[in-house]
C-alpha cells in the first residue's frame, strides 16, 4: 500500500532541491519522513551529537550557530539544515535552535545519500551550498577545515608557464600578459638534466615576477631587450605539491614572498601566488600579519596587537590543529619583531656591523600560544667591537624588548633577552658558548639554557643563526654526556598522574584543584622530543616535525612516535581550547585547567596522553642516562 502524504509532497515539490526530483521520488520522500515539532527557544541540534537526518523547515524558523555561539545562519520555511554534518562525519557541526515554534520534516540519511547518487541536480544543490565543497569534504574524511587538509596542489589551476633565460624582458612581459600570470619560471636549456628522474628540476634557474618588472625594469629604465636572466631572482624557495596550504602560507609570510614555485618530486609543476592562498584563508591571520607590517610606530603596533587574542580564538574555533595555531602565532610574533626592528633601525640608523636577531624557545619551535614570554638574543658579526658598537645594539635591544612588552609579550623572568649583555654576543662567542654547553654539560647550566637549543633567526643576517643550528645539529648527536644532561632536564617535570593513574592536582593556592597543562604536559613533551631530535642530528625545531625525523631514523620502537604525536596533539589541543575559552569569557588566558570541567571522555583521553608521556620519560632515562654512565 503506497500512502500518499499530499501535504508533505506538495510542500517538498514546491521547494528546492526537491522540485528537481521526479514525482515518484518526492512521494517516496514524503512517505519516509519523520515530523518533529520544536517550541521556540528549544535546541534542535546539539554540537557534536550524532546526526542521521536532513532537516527541512516546514513552518517557523531556526537559527544556526557556530560552535563559539556566533550566529551563522537563519533558516525559515522551505530551508534546509543538517547537511554539513551528514556530509562530513555525521556529527553536528553547527548547533541549531528554534527561533519560532517550528515544524520540521526529517529525511533519513540513507534516502538523502541515495538521492544524491541518483539525481544529479539534487547532489549539485548540496555541492553548491554556501558552506562550500561539501561533497569534497566527505572524501577528505574531514573533521577539519580546508586550511588544515587542503594540499598545495589543489591550488594549481593551470599549467606551468616558463620562458628560456635568453629571451628578452619584453618577450617575457608579453608572455605574462597573454597567459595572465603574475610570475614566470625561467629555464636554461643548456643546464644538464640529471640522470635520476627523481632529481630532474626541469632546468629551472630562476623566477620573474610583476614586481621585478616594476622595480628592476621600469623604475630603473632598463633596456627591455636585455635577457630575462639579468633581472630574474635566482634563489628559489620552493614548496612540495603535497605540502599543506597553510605551510605554503607560512613560508610566504616568513620570507615575504609573493610567489612560490610548486614542485612534484623536485620537478616544477606550477607557481602559486599569495592571492591563491588568500582565497583559501578563511579568516584573517594572514591579513593580520600584513597589517603588522603597515604600522608606523610602536604605539600603533601595540594598539594593533590587541586584536591578536581574537585572531587566536578564531583559529581555534575553526578547528585549526595545534601545529597550525602554534605556527600562526609564531609567524605573527616574528612579524611583530621584524616590524619593531625596522622601526628601531629607522630611529637609530643603519647598524654599524651585521647582526641577527634570534627567537628562542616556543617561538623558534613554531609552538607559540597566547600566553608567552619573550625569549630572544642577538648574534653579532665577528667584526663587532664592544666599545665602538655596543651602544647601538644595546639601544636596539631595548627598543625591541620594550616594544614587545607593549605588544603583550611579557619580559622574560630569566633575563633571556637581547637587552642582557650576556646574550648579545659575536658569532664566534656564541659558537664557543654552544660548544662549551655541549662539551661540559652541567645540568644546572643547561637547566637555564636548554631554551637556547631551539633557536631561529628572525631578522637581519639569518645565516648567522643557521650556522649555530648547524653546529648544534652536528655536534649534539656525538655528545652522549650532553644528551644525558638534556635527558635529565627533560625528566624534571613529570606528568600529573598519581599511582592509581588519576590526576594529581594542586592542593592549595590560587590554582587549587587545577593542573598546569604546559608545565606538566606540553613542556615536558617538547623537552623529550628535543633530546631525541638532538640525538639524531635533526635540524628541525618544531616538535611535530622533529617527531617525523625521529620516526624516519627509527630511533624509537615501532608505534611510539605515533603515540607521542597523538599525545602531543591532544594535550596541546586541550591547552589551546582552554586559552580560547578564557579569552571568550573575558578572562586572562592561562595554562591551569580544571580536569573536573572536562567531559569524562576528555579526562580519559588526557590521562592516556599523560600515560604516554610517562612511559616515554622512562624510556628516555634508560636510553640516554645509562649510556652516559658507561662512557
Amino acid at each position, binding site marked *: 500500500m503506497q500512502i500518499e*502524504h*499530499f501535504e508533505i509532497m506538495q510542500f517538498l515539490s514546491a521547494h528546492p532541491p526537491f522540485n528537481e526530483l521526479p514525482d515518484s521520488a518526492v512521494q517516496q520522500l514524503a512517505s519516509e519522513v519523520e515530523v518533529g*515539532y520544536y517550541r521556540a527557544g528549544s535546541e534542535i541540534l546539539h554540537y557534536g551529537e550524532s546526526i542521521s537526518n536532513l532537516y527541512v523547515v516546514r513552518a517557523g524558523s531556526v537559527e544556526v550557530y557556530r560552535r563559539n555561539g556566533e550566529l551563522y545562519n537563519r533558516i525559515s520555511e522551505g530551508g534546509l539544515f543538517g547537511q554539513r554534518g551528514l556530509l562530513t562525519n555525521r556529527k553536528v557541526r553547527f548547533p541549531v535552535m528554534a527561533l519560532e515554534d517550528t515544524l520540521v520534516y526529517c529525511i533519513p540519511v540513507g534516502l538523502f545519500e541515495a538521492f544524491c547518487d541518483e539525481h544529479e541536480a539534487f547532489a549539485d544543490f548540496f555541492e553548491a551550498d554556501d558552506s562550500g565543497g561539501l561533497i569534497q569534504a566527505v572524501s577528505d574524511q574531514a573533521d577539519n577545515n580546508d586550511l588544515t587538509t587542503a594540499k598545495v596542489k589543489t591550488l594549481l589551476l593551470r599549467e606551468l608557464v616558463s620562458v628560456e633565460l635568453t629571451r628578452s624582458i619584453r618577450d617575457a612581459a608579453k608572455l605574462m600578459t597573454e597567459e595572465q600570470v603574475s610570475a614566470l619560471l625561467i629555464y636554461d636549456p643548456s643546464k644538464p638534466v640529471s640522470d635520476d628522474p627523481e632529481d630532474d628540476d626541469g632546468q629551472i634557474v630562476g623566477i620573474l615576477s610583476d614586481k621585478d618588472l616594476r622595480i628592476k625594469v621600469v623604475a630603473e629604465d632598463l633596456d627591455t631587450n636585455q635577457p630575462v636572466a639579468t633581472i630574474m631572482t635566482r634563489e628559489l624557495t620552493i614548496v612540495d605539491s603535497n605540502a599543506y596550504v597553510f605551510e605554503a602560507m607560512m613560508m610566504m609570510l616568513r620570507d615575504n614572498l609573493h610567489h612560490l614555485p610548486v614542485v612534484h618530486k623536485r620537478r616544477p609543476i606550477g607557481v602559486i601566488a599569495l592571492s591563491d592562498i588568500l582565497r583559501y584563508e578563511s579568516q584573517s591571520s594572514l591579513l593580520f600579519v600584513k597589517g603588522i607590517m603597515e604600522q608606523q610606530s610602536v604605539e600603533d603596533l601595540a594598539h594593533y596587537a590587541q586584536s591578536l587574542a581574537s585572531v587566536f580564538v578564531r583559529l581555534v574555533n575553526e578547528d585549526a590543529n595545534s601545529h597550525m595555531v602554534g605556527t600562526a602565532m609564531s609567524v605573527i610574533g616574528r612579524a611583530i619583531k621584524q616590524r619593531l626592528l625596522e622601526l628601531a633601525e629607522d630611529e637609530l640608523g643603519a647598524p654599524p656591523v651585521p647582526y641577527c636577531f634570534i627567537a628562542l624557545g616556543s617561538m623558534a619551535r613554531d609552538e607559540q600560544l597566547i600566553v608567552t614570554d619573550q625569549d630572544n638574543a642577538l648574534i653579532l658579526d665577528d667584526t663587532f667591537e664592544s666599545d665602538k658598537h655596543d651602544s647601538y645594539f644595546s639601544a636596539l635591544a631595548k627598543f625591541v624588548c620594550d616594544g614587545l612588552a607593549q605588544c603583550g609579550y611579557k619580559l622574560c623572568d630569566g633575563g633571556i633577552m637581547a637587552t642582557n649583555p650576556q646574550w648579545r654576543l659575536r658569532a664566534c662567542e656564541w659558537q664557543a658558548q654552544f660548544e662549551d654547553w655541549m662539551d661540559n654539560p652541567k645540568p644546572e647550566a643547561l637547566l637555564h639554557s636548554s631554551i637556547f637549543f631551539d633557536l631561529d633567526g628572525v631578522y637581519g643576517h639569518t645565516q648567522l643563526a643557521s650556522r649555530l643550528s648547524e653546529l648544534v645539529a652536528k655536534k649534539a648527536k656525538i655528545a652522549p654526556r650532553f644528551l644525558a644532561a638534556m635527558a635529565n632536564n627533560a625528566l624534571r617535570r613529570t606528568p600529573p598522574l598519581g599511582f592509581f593513574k588519576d590526576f594529581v592536582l594542586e592542593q592549595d593556592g590560587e590554582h587549587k584543584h587545577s593542573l598546569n597543562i604546559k608545565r606538566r604536559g606540553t613542556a615536558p613533551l617538547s623537552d623529550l622530543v628535543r633530546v631525541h631530535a638532538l640525538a639524531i642530528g635533526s635540524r628541525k625545531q618544531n616538535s611535530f616535525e622533529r617527531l617525523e625525523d625521529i620516526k624516519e631514523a627509527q630511533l624509537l620502537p615501532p608505534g611510539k612516535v605515533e603515540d607521542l604525536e597523538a599525545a602531543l596533539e591532544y594535550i596541546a589541543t586541550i591547552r589551546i581550547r582552554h586559552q580560547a575559552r578564557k579569552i571568550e569569557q573575558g578572562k586572562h588566558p592561562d595554562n591551569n585547567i580544571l580536569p573536573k570541567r572536562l567531559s569524562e571522555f576528555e579526562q580519559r583521553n588526557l590521562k592516556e596522553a599523560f600515560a604516554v608521556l610517562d612511559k616515554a620519560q622512562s624510556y628516555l632515562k634508560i636510553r640516554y642516562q645509562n649510556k652516559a654512565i658507561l662512557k
Partner: protein
Amino acid sequence: MAIQGDILSWPNRFAHLARQSNDERLRAFYNAGVQLPDTPVSEARFVALDFETTGLNHETDDIVSVGLVPFDARRAYCRDAKHWILKPATPLHEESVVVHQITHSQVREAPDLDTILAELLASLAGRVIVVHYRHIERPFFNQALMQRLGEGIEFPLIDTMALEHRIETNRLTWWQQIKRQPIPSIRLADSRKRYGLPYYIAHHALSDALATAELLQAQLQHHYTSQTELKALWM
C-alpha cells in the same frame, strides 16, 4: 458502551476484554495491552487516528476512510502511517462527499472494514490512540464492529480538542469565566495555528491524523512537562 471512569483500571479492563472477546483480532489487540497510566509522556507511544464517515450519526452512518500515524513526543513516523478507503455499510450521502471528497466510484472498489481490521488493529495495538474530537472515532469504531462482529471495542484515548478546551479555559481569568466569555475556536486548524503549525487540507483522514499528531506534540511542549503522566491526559 462502557467508558471507564476510573483510569487506573484500563490495564485490568484490557485483560478482562481479552478473555471475553470472541474475535481473534480483538483478542490480539487487547492482549498487546495498554500503556501504563503512570507512563511519562516522553516515553509514551501514541498513534493519531482519524475517520471520515458517511454522516455524523454513529447509529446510522459508517466509516469511509481511516488514516493513522504512529508518533511519540519527539517524532511522527510517516513511514509507518496507514490510510484506507472503505466500502461503508450505509450509502454515501451527497453532503458527506462534499466534505471528504471520497466518491462513489472510489468506495465501490474499496474493501469492507472487516478485511482490513487485523492490520488496523495491529497498528493501534499497544499505543495510546489520539484523536481530535472524541465523539467520532470511538463510537463509530464501536458501532462498526458491533455490526460486523456482534461485539464492540473499548480503548483509552487522548482528545486534542478536549485538551485545547482545557488549556484555553485555564487561560481565562476568574472574571472572564464568571462572565462566560467564550474561548477561541478549538477546531483542529484553528488550534494548530496557535502553535505555529501550518495549514493542512482538512477532512482527509491521513492529513487529519498527521495534523492531530503534530498538535499533541505542540500541546505537550507548551503546556506539559516530559514527566506528565498519561493518566492526566487520556479519557
